[in-house]
């Protein structure tokens, strides 16, 4: 199950006269390439990048946003988590930890969203994911780490079979929701003196890549009433305006609802 993703053409080909058939017609590609250069600031790179991802994985979503922001084309390799495809011999060979997301960049294989984001940041510096100011960087690291170690792991508890056998799913869900809300309340406090249009100012940085998928999940999977978190809700509205974010969301992925 592989999809050649050419999101730049889908997003930016509005002014193309001809309908673009993905990856086929050279003339159209050249015309739309020039449209892309006019319409976006980051250049789309021909890339040997592959992302092993699941539509439902919020950590994969973080990486998808980063790839979009940096204008990096990649091949989307869907991994069906419910069918256990992460344990297939093929995937295990590539990624012995059986984790998504896994990024393949030529000979380099990187696992785990934070490591992938830092790798992308080092190798493809366009559209930096971290601000130059150290104080702001620290805020971004804190928000990112807090989401990935204090909020997102709790979601996985819902799926953990061990606890599912013992506890009714309603009770578990409400307990997870309670802790998620506590986490969001803390994030609001962390960011309130730093946020502007986005989490740490007027530009998108690392914190936003972690917040967007988490808020999305809270709204769509855990029924969290986000109106009690006005800052996060406002940030979410801002993310909804950005194609790089929207194109990364679960509903837009090739394997949406197929697993």
């Amino acid at each position: 199950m592989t999809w050649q993703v050419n999101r730049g053409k889908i997003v930016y080909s509005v002014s193309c006269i001809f309908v673009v058939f993905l990856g086929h017609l050279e003339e159209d590609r050249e015309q739309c390439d020039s449209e892309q250069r006019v319409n976006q600031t980051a250049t789309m790179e021909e890339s040997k990048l592959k992302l092993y991802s699941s539509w439902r994985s919020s950590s994969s979503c973080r990486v998808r946003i980063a790839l979009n922001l940096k204008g990096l084309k990649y091949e989307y390799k869907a991994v069906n988590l419910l069918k256990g495809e992460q344990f297939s011999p093929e995937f295990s060979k590539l990624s012995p930890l059986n984790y998504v997301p896994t990024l393949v960049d030529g000979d380099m294989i990187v696992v785990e969203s934070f490591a992938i984001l830092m790798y992308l940041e080092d190798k493809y510096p366009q559209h930096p994911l971290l601000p130059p100011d150290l104080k702001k960087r620290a805020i971004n690291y804190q928000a990112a780490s807090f989401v990935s170690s204090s909020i997102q792991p709790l979601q996985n508890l819902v799926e953990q079979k061990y606890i599912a056998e013992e506890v009714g799913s309603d009770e578990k869900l409400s307990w997870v929701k309670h802790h998620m809300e506590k986490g969001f309340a803390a994030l609001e406090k962390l960011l309130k003196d730093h946020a502007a249009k986005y989490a740490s100012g007027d530009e998108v940085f690392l914190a936003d890549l972690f917040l967007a998928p988490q808020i999305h999940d809270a709204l769509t999977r855990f029924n969290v009433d986000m109106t009690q978190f006005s800052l996060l809700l406002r940030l979410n509205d801002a993310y909804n305006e950005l194609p790089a974010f929207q194109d990364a969301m679960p509903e837009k992925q090739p394997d949406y609802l197929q697993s």
Partner: protein
Amino acid sequence: MSSSSKLVLYSYWQSSCAWRVRFALNLKGLAYEYRSVNLRKGEQFSPEFKKLNPLCFVPVLVDGDIVVSDSFAILLYLNEKYPQNALLPSDPQLRALNLQASNIVSSSMQPLIMQSILKYIEDKFGPAERQLWVRHNTEKGFQALEKLLKDYAGTYATGEEVYMADVFLAPQTAVAEMRFNIDMSKFPTLNGIYKSCKDLPEFQASVPERQPDAEL
């Protein structure tokens, strides 16, 4: 040791997350003022501490007018502000490995065995279930780490120098062994790394029992 007298670390002797930062500060030769936050007494919820860190966690590092909470964020901050004895190697593969190993500990292991979750499990199912839960999640994490590092580890996690992976691994291994009775001989790579770290004066100075607020 070079001194940076404005560094303040809010810590608790038994917190494995604070332990990581103590170890890292020692590795970088950074002096700091130790301020105890007694988690048992709930001091992390005091209005004063909440003002400093609304997340109510230790560790918190204060460096002049910069306040950083969360051990992972603190280590990244320290590494950028005080580059001596780098916590991340320059080689991209090894760099990524260190970040991965650190995140496995900080996102997949420690959060699932933090006190609030253990209390929930114990309240619901009793102490035996709690122990099973700890063992299950700790061993799962260590299995992943063993796989991740077995082809790269030398004296330390990713070779012959101490880096961020070691800073996360050593306290986690210590806690697993001493507090949760995990049999580390099942994880020879991790066990070897832990033994190497135990020989370091910087690690020895960071252990819980040597902290000012240790209750022995």
